[in-house]
């Protein structure tokens, strides 16, 4: 096709940005209906125990309270968290959780009852009047402890709810033949999404008796879950997705949807439910904390010969997406390196902590932290430059990893690393007590879902009579330009001005289901679908134009709503061809479904097959200043280099790179959601600290385009890859600055200080 793109790859202003700047966008909580009730979730205040008595009588009697729903009122009180949007059961377990706790609560904050009242204040007052008598049980709060046979069991008879393995070669023998062996234990923390917009939605029943849920969500397919819980047909539950005020995986699992469904179904009246920031703290899932033991062996020329890893993730009180997060970790566990002998054992374990599930990078970020730390430790033991060691072992296109994953795109890591370091420029000198250090970390991060989930994305594209274009897609928009890319692709292929293309989106009944905005799949899946649909219409148009112009279709192009012949220079307005098609009954709209490669589900625990379509390769390099006397670390400058395949909207790509890096800085240095024996300690944004404008370095985004991605125009994905390598780049820089290896995140001043002291 065209090499000189008109809109692809440009810095393009998004359609909704002006509206966002003007404050006119109606987010979930901004929406109100007449007669609307206000919902509130009543939650457990113990981490583990039986509910002996639940007394809602006083609350129900409060004037203005419309209804209180408990587990007994829920038609199907079990929510099955199979990978949403799909129908295949995967992994070792179905992930079931109670919609409302009936006899037992397993984490502090678990929902027990739902209230709907005339005002939010009355709903809060009612919540205070609900009395629960608990019989507390001894819980377990450490996943390593929870693996032991004598540990309290959270569900059933085994706290280990997922296991994945990688086996290749013989690590035992291989280690014997290594010149250096480096073994370390790494630990990571609960991270909170901390999107600025709380989970929120409004529900009502329309004139067709359909339950409408207008919610801030990354997954409009949740309507199936809601329908199942209510025992109503799936055709009678509709989700309209709003413009989302941040997600990062926090709005991937079901949030307010099923509660709204219950409240509207019970009362028949419109209901709004918005979580408080505290509820977002103790009531919503977090990133899995990991404990990882990694052992690497290499020969003195720098070839990594063997790797052994034991990975334990804290699944919290319910399974949710833990097995899939663990699967990502297991596949990514080697880092982007070719290693002949590999043994990985990964476990996900239940505890009475807050449940854990999806979060940007989805299991790759933890193992990347460990691997990239190991690479530097290995380099130290070999007396090699850390980047040179990596370069000797990087994956190449065509390689098959120990988990059976074929690498099917260009691996740009070497060049990315060089570019990132070059961008940093010369390292400044240390002025005690501030030590300057430089660190590099590499990452690979899949884009597109696991292939045995048989992912599909449907998008409808249609031409108006005047040549303007409509795209209909269910894809939610997280702010990363998910919808915007569809506009650009349609505009590019159909040869119309960008302003003439409108995307109608995110309605589970009125727009084709394009799947979730998760797993960095949006551009790959929906972009390809839009490309398919647009190309089909383009072909139809050009075929008809060729017929009319008596030219070969191949010599025709569409430029600015005009069909142009490169041979004869003849021009016909697009509108004229559309008119002909219309009168001949030739449709100029189509629904296309893009299918990702389909593979069989993994049989057993050992992974020995492709799991992902492709990966985005990235390198982050940074300079830090370590205050040796306090342990405080500041990132001075950070270069983040990513091969995005092809950038569709350069502004958006940079925005993801910068935003992901800053979220990574938070993960590395200051973010930690803390529970002590299951009791939350950091519920507000005053205690759970995310970076402010004063915490960011100079950020240099570097965009490389190998054109070898599986997305439209050779694009890959950037949403998740942008965060994956930040933390180890920082901890490697800390080592360079001050000679201490931080093996536990976050690298708070205190942690760094005592590491320095005990050096």
């Amino acid at each position, binding site marked *: 096709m065209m090499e000189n793109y008109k809109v692809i790859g440009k*810095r393009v*202003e*998004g359609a*909704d*940005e*002006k*509206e*966002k*700047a*003007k*404050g*006119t*966008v*109606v*987010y979930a*909580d*901004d929406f109100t209906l007449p007669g609307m009730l206000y919902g509130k979730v009543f939650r457990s205040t113990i981490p583990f125990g039986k509910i002996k008595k639940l007394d809602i009588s006083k609350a129900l009697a409060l004037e203005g309270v419309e209804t209180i729903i408990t587990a007994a009122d829920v038609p199907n009180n079990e929510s099955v968290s199979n990978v949403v949007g799909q129908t295949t059961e995967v992994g070792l377990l179905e992930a079931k959780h109670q919609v409302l706790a009936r006899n037992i609560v397993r984490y502090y904050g678990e929902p027990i009852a739902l209230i709907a009242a005339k005002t939010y204040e009355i709903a809060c007052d009612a919540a205070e009047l609900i009395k629960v008598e608990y019989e507390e049980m001894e819980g377990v709060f450490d996943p390593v402890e929870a693996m032991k046979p004598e540990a309290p069991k959270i569900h059933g008879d085994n706290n280990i709810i997922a296991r994945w393995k990688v086996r290749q070669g013989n690590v035992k023998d291989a280690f014997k033949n290594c010149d250096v062996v480096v073994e370390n234990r790494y630990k990571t923390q609960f991270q909170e*999404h*901390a*999107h*600025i*917009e*709380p989970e929120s939605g409004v529900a009502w029943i329309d004139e067709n008796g359909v339950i409408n849920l207008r919610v801030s969500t990354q997954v409009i397919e949740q309507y199936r879950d809601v329908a199942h819980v209510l025992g109503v047909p799936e055709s009678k539950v509709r989700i309209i997705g709003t*413009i*989302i*005020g*941040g997600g*990062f995986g926090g709005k991937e699992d079901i949030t307010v949807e099923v509660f709204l469904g219950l409240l509207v179904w019970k009362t028949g009246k419109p209901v709004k439910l*918005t979580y*408080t*920031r505290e509820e977002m703290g103790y009531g919503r899932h977090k990133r899995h904390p990991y404990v990882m033991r990694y052992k690497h062996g290499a020969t003195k020329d720098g070839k990594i010969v063997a790797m052994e890893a034991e990975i334990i993730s804290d699944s919290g009180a319910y399974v949710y997406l833990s097995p899939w997060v663990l699967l990502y970790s297991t596949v990514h566990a080697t880092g982007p390196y070719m290693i002949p002998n590999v043994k990985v054992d990964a476990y996900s374990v239940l505890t009475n902590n807050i449940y854990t599930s999806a979060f940007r990078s989805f299991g790759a970020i933890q193992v990347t932290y460990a691997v990239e730390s190991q690479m530097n430790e290995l380099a130290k033991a070999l007396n090699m430059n850390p980047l040179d060691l990596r370069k000797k072992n990087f994956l190449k296109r065509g390689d098959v990893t120990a988990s059976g994953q074929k690498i099917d795109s260009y691996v740009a890591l070497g060049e990315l690393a060089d570019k990132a370091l070059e961008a940093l420029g010369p390292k400044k000198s240390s002025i005690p007590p501030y030590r300057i250090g430089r660190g590099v970390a590499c990452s690979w991060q899949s884009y597109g879902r696991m292939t045995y989930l048989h992912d599909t994305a449907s998008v409808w594209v249609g031409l108006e009579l005047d040549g303007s274009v409509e795209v209909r897609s269910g894809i939610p928009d*997280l*702010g*990363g*330009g998910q919808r915007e890319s569809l506009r650009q692709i349609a505009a590019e292929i159909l040869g119309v001005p960008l302003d003439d293309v409108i995307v109608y989106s995110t309605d589970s009944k009125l727009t084709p289901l394009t799947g979730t905005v998760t797993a960095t799949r949006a551009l790959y899946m929906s972009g390809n679908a839009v490309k398919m649909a647009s190309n089909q219409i383009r072909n139809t148009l050009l075929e008809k134009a060729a017929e009319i112009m008596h030219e070969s279709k191949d010599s025709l192009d569409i430029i600015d709503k005009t069909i142009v012949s490169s041979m004869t220079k003849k021009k016909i307005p697009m509108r004229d061809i559309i008119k002909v098609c219309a009168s001949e009954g030739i449709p100029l709209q189509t629904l296309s479904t893009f299918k990702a490669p389909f593979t069989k589900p993994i049989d057993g625990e050992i992974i020995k097959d492709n799991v992902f379509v492709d990966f985005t390769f990235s390198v982050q390099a940074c300079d830090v200043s370590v205050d040796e006397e306090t342990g405080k670390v500041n990132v001075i400058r950070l270069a983040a280099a990513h091969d995005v395949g092809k950038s569709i909207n350069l*502004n*958006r790509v*940079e*925005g993801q790179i*910068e*935003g*992901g*890096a*800053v*979220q990574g800085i938070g993960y590395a240095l200051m973010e930690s959601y803390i529970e002590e024996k299951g009791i939350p300690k950091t519920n*507000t*944004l*005053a205690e759970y600290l*995310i*970076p*402010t*404008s*004063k915490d*960011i370095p100079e*950020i240099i985004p570097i965009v490389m385009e190998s054109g070898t991605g599986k997305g439209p125009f050779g694009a890959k994905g950037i949403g998740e890859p942008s965060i994956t390598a930040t933390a180890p780049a920082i901890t490697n820089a800390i080592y360079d600055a001050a000679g201490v290896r931080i093996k536990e995140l976050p690298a708070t001043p205190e942690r760094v200080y005592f590491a320095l002291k005990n050096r």
Partner: protein
Amino acid sequence: MKHDIEITVNGTKIKDSIEASTTLLDFLRSHGFTEVKKGCDKGDCGACTVLIDGAATTSCITLALQANNKEVLTVKSLNGWRKLHPLQQAFVKYEAIQCGFCTPGMLMSAKWLLDKNPHPTRAEIIDAISGNLCRCTGYKKIIDAIEYVAQGGK
């Protein structure tokens, strides 16, 4: 107990009778000014930032009655019917907006800064928005946008 209140919001007098415990944020949102966002309701995130008699502050921890007889400006006071304020234009131009939820508050802090100090340094810009949390952009493009306007860009 209910109290009479009158606040001029974006040039329009709003009169009502409210409970004393009503925050300025809830007052504004319940009167249709939903461009003022509730992110945390505790003064920690800045999404609810408005100008009260020219001073940018978090409306969620301000009693509505403390703004009685005062002038409150929200982000909607910046733009005209078709014309964007230079700050809004710069935010769009520099792609300083992703999900957009922090944007109204962020713009008001920027406005407060430029009203007080028309040509701030980059460090002063960073300080001025240090109470506005953004989780999407990483702040860089926001700072670039404000700096552009501070340097005379339109």
